[in-house]
């Protein structure tokens, strides 16, 4: 079969794709922000909280890490309304994505926390630092610094994870692309274009995360 690539019919709809890209960036940024916050609270709760909290966090992490993101999206969008929580497509997507990332971030940060040598905490205690300051400055920051590369890799996965929220009718980049495929029947061209857009987006995000890491985790001497 002969195939001639024709990008013209797609590129006239570039504004739609860019609007989709904007939504993708929004979903990724918000869910990374909330997901990281959940991760920090979760990791601290798991390592330093009372036993019941530690178990609750462990249960949350296991529940989320052992079920597909798509099912979590369906649950938030289709099942929660039956219990009276009705969220719009975008809200449901941010909630599900944040809860999803939160579990992974908890686990990654906990790994960093567990790697902190006991002696470091004992040294801080002998210096008379408060419990809050020990957890924050002596444990959490060095732990985050150590696992930051894994964390930013998880953020990248999160950006790409947004591509399935079209399943609950959120019009992000991939959903817009699927609409265009249905209108133009030029699937090959559409997917090439969005692959390029995703590539550029993820490259830019990688640079951003690397820069942020340098800024946040400078060694102070």
């Amino acid at each position, binding site marked *: 079969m002969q195939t001639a690539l024709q990008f013209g019919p797609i590129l006239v709809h570039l504004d739609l794709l860019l609007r989709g890209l904007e939504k993708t960036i929004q979903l990724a940024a918000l869910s990374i922000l909330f997901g990281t916050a959940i991760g920090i609270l979760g990791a601290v709760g798991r390592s330093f909280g009372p036993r019941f909290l530690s178990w609750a966090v462990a249960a949350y992490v296991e529940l989320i890490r052992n079920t597909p993101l798509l099912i979590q999206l369906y649950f938030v969008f*289709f099942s929660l309304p039956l219990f009276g929580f*009705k969220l719009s497509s975008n809200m449901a997507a941010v909630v599900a994505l944040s809860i999803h990332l939160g579990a992974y971030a908890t686990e990654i940060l906990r790994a960093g926390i567990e790697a902190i040598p006991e002696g470091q905490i004992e040294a801080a205690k002998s210096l008379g630092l408060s419990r809050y300051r020990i957890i924050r400055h002596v444990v959490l920051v060095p732990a985050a610094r150590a696992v930051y590369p894994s964390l930013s890799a998880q953020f990248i996965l999160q950006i790409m994870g947004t591509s399935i929220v*079209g399943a*609950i009718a959120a019009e992000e980049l991939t959903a817009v692309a699927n609409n265009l495929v*249905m209108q133009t029947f030029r699937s090959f061209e559409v997917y090439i274009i969005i692959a390029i857009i995703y590539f550029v987006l993820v490259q830019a995000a990688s640079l951003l995360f690397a820069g942020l890491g340098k800024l946040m985790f400078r060694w102070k001497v």
Partner: protein
Amino acid sequence: MRTFLGGAGALLAGFVLALSALLPSIATAQSVEDIISRGKLVVAIDTTTPPYGFLDANLKPTGFDIEVANKMGEALGVPVEFVTVTSPGRIPALLTKQVDAVISIFSITPARAIQIDYSIPYAGQSAVVIAPKSTGIKGVADLVGKKVGLTRGTGEDGLLTKAAETNPGIEILRFDDYSSLLQAMVSGQIDAMGGGDYGEIYLKKAQNGDAFEQKYVLKTFYFGIGVAKGNDNLRQWINTWLFTMKTDGTLDALSMKYRNQPLPVLPVF
């Protein structure tokens, strides 16, 4: 050289013979008499289009279209042989004379009628707007300010997207498949949905499925029985037979059985 070519030719001839034995028998019948004297009616169906054509629990073809085909065989007094095709395979099945007729939600369109001939419509289906009984929706204007769900790339998508362009304020939510769309309707994530007029059958199976009703018709498609171009003998018999099926209520009974509602008014040509 000559012997080589001759040998190659003989080989080729043998190969073609062997190949033709593998090909399905070709339904060369042209007229009604041909079909009766051959002793079978060959019909193209699609088993992936419930409730019109699907496989039952025993993996046997069943559905509205399949019963119409069986009744056609009964009327001719011959058994029916089914050939399963996909929707893009319907016209080629007639062009290559593999089947006598196509009975497979074959919407009547002028573009298709250039290549094949249609009988008068035997069924019709509408793209409709479905919403909870409690919502007052009479037409497109009532959809403004509401969330309307549909399945990406369907006929309803085209019709409602156009409606949303001329009536700003209609929020369209596109789902990837019909089950997600129904789920969104049942869970109240959308205020109304676009779908086939048989959608209520599926909604009724849901927990609060009785709360929904058809609001208005977007567009009606009419299905005809397709025959090879110029096969007026068969087409005229089918039209006459369909006339009797319509007037004695057989088609409406079939529609009630599979679509849970009578057929729309079927214009003739």
